[in-house]
């Protein structure tokens, strides 16, 4: 069997697919797994010796398109030869993990028996091959609140359960690099991955210096290594100078990806922004503190491992869009993240004192939120707040995820869906999590959620009725206005409505007849049916959990 995985974004995005690679290997030990990725991710090859790499020479192709000293058809032949070469390998399955048209067209061109993920067709329509990839395109991209981690989506979307642990072997060159950098270290080694791909996701040098200074006071024998690739050396040198000025003995650790992996296996703590190094750390045991700034969205791309810590400022604009510059007068999310808080969180992780983590979360509660990562019993990754929030909100959050999972796995279409088992897993999760709920509290939460769910279900039916009116010219404008107003109100209740609102925005510019575009209308109606379906699933879960919570009474 031959499988091609397509990941045409950054190195970190390829690393998010590690659980999928492991799941594929587990399910098909004899399969040949191929990866089409940008040439910038080629540095991963030594770490993934079982994967056949095919490099998309993005820079070369774009230069060929834009440089007038290059033959006009150069890039055309480059892409054509690549696709011809891939098609000749006769893949049984192509899995596209990149949600953009470029990858969709390339996957459309490659011959394969089965395709999953975004695939463009000749008539311009997109197919996804799986409810999970449709969900990724429709809901995650539209800014849904309770969304699954990309690694979960990639695996479930392809029909596999992601493993909670992935192993990558070290390579000799990486080990040599790490040993050269580390030398003979006595005290704790703290790695700092300060630079990310986007300035908005970076913490300032001044704040890093302060945080590391506080850590150095607590751990005088600690070594601070500023991690980076060769092309980052100049910027890291500037950071080092700023940190040295504050009295912190920081060193540069410039290395390759294999070198970084070996360092991660030997160091005692990683402090990182949203970077590929964070994803690489997920295959090691190093404790990680992730600073979630700017457009970083830990719900989708947090470190895919249990027991790590994520710190995020409480600012209304987070996470911001990765496509635009920061809209604030100051870099609010970074400045609100206190160096003292980061130092204390790092200390808790180094000393494995999780109780003190709660104390830090409470002390700095007005400015930041601290999360710990784990895997739910239902089989997906999540980041739980260290300090409990409103109980009903907690139960609702888990309920929403389980509802989505059941719907995406089409449990509601099976004669005997897994509602009872899922409800049991949900109950155990909220009863045993970081902030466990007693059965009495759970029963009260479920009562509130049941009445909310009943309201949502009836509103969904009403929305569908109003949606049907949009097809009639006579009532179109009034119906559209009512529908939009209802959806705004319902947004907080059911996340799916965010997507609907984005569709409806396009209806405002419909033609002089007042009737929205029919294909858009069909999409809206489909989503409304999904909302209704989700409501029904949610009710089943609530009732099953209520029944289980009553069992002990």
């Amino acid at each position, binding site marked *: 069997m031959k499988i091609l995985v397509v990941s045409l974004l950054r190195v970190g995005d390829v690393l998010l697919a590690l659980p999928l690679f492991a799941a594929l290997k587990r399910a098909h030990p004899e399969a040949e797994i191929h990866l089409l990725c940008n040439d910038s991710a080629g540095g991963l090859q030594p770490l993934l010796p079982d994967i056949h790499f095919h490099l998309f020479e*993005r820079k*070369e*192709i*774009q230069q060929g*398109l*834009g440089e*007038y*000293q*290059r*033959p*006009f*058809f*150069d*890039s*055309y*032949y*480059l*892409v*054509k*030869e690549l*696709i*011809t070469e891939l*098609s000749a390998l006769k893949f049984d399955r192509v899995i596209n993990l990149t949600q*953009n*048209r*470029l990858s969709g*067209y*390339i996957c*459309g*061109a490659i011959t394969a028996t089965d395709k999953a993920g975004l695939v*463009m067709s*000749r*008539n*311009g329509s997109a197919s996804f091959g799986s409810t999970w990839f449709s969900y990724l395109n429709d809901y995650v991209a539209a800014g849904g609140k309770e969304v699954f981690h990309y690694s979960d989506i990639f695996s479930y979307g392809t029909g596999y359960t992601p493993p909670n642990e992935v192993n990558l072997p070290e390579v000799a060159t990486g080990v040599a690099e790490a040993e050269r950098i580390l030398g003979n270290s006595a005290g704790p080694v703290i790695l700092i991955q300060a630079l990310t791909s986007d300035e908005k996701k970076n913490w300032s040098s001044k704040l890093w210096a302060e945080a590391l200074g506080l850590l150095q006071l607590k751990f005088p024998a600690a070594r601070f290594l500023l991690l980076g690739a060769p092309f980052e050396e100049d910027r890291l040198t500037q950071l080092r100078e700023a940190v040295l000025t504050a009295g912190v003995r920081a060193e540069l650790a410039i290395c390759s990806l294999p070198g970084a992996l070996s360092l991660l296996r030997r160091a005692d703590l990683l402090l990182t922004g949203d970077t590929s190094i964070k994803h690489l750390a997920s295959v090691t045991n190093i404790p990680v503190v992730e600073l979630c700034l700017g457009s970083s969205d830990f719900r989708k791309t947090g470190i895919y491992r249990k027991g790590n810590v994520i710190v995020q400022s409480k600012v209304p604009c987070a996470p911001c869009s990765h496509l635009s510059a920061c809209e604030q007068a100051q870099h609010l999310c970074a400045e609100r993240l206190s160096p003292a808080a980061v130092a204390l969180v790092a200390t808790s992780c180094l000393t494995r004192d999780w109780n003190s983590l709660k104390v830090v979360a409470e002390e700095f509660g007005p400015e930041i939120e601290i999360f710990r990562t784990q895997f739910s019993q239902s089989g997906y990754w999540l980041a739980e707040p260290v300090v409990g929030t409103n109980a009903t909100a907690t139960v609702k959050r888990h309920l929403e995820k389980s509802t989505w999972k059941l719907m995406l796995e089409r449990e509601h279409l099976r004669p005997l869906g897994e509602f009872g088992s899922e409800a049991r897993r949900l109950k155990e999760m909220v009863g045993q999590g970081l902030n466990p709920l007693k059965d009495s509290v759970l029963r009260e939460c479920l009562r509130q959620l049941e009445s909310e769910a009943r309201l949502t279900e009836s509103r969904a039916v009403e929305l569908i009725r109003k949606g049907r009116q949009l097809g009639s010219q006579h009532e179109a404008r009034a119906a559209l206005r009512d529908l939009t107003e209802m959806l705004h109100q319902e947004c907080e209740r059911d996340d799916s409505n965010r997507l609907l609102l984005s569709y409806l925005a396009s209806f405002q510019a419909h033609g002089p007849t007042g009737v929205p575009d029919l294909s858009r209308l069909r999409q809206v109606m489909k989503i409304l049916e999904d909302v209704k379906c989700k409501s029904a699933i949610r009710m089943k879960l609530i009732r099953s959990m209520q029944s289980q919570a009553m069992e002990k009474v």
Partner: protein
Amino acid sequence: MMEEFYAKSGDRILRIGEKYLCSAVDPRTEAERWVAGHRAKVHKAKGLLILGLGAGYHIAQLRKQYPSKKIVIFEQNERCIQFAERLFPIELFDVPIVSENLFDKVIADPAVKAVLSSRYTILRHAPSAALNEPWYDVLEKELLGRSLTSLRSQLGVQSTFKAFEGTPLLWGESTPIDWRIFDHLNDGQLAERSDLDFFVLKALRELIK
């Protein structure tokens, strides 16, 4: 006036007026360095279009290091051609040398067409190109396909794009061409393309955004 000499290395070389067409010290080493300097471009291409034959040393070196590459040489000086063919009869045996003046005929030459229909690169042999710089400049522009006229000439050569030969291309004559030139084509005009070509065109357009 063209004269034949011996370089210090003992190899035969050509001089026109005061200009040597290759090194008067060691033309073979010079040719090796010339090929090494173009290695990145040569390695990626299937076909090589060489502007200038000179004394032939650089061609001989290319054939030695890259025997499978399709090579076409552009040279108008008959004396150069005779000299090089005498010096390198085996290396130049099956290499097309194009001397045509009219650019339409250059593009229509079967050997040139064969190279243009895959990834190719254009390499200039400076000493020999200097003998007729204006001709080589225009020739290079035609072979790149980056002006409206040269693109039109090349459309006829590219099997995928032959159907666009007569299609109006909405572009300024003096503006260097990029792939947005096909934007105005509707899906109907692309309908006859094979699946592969259709998707490649769409993918390329995404990369320009």
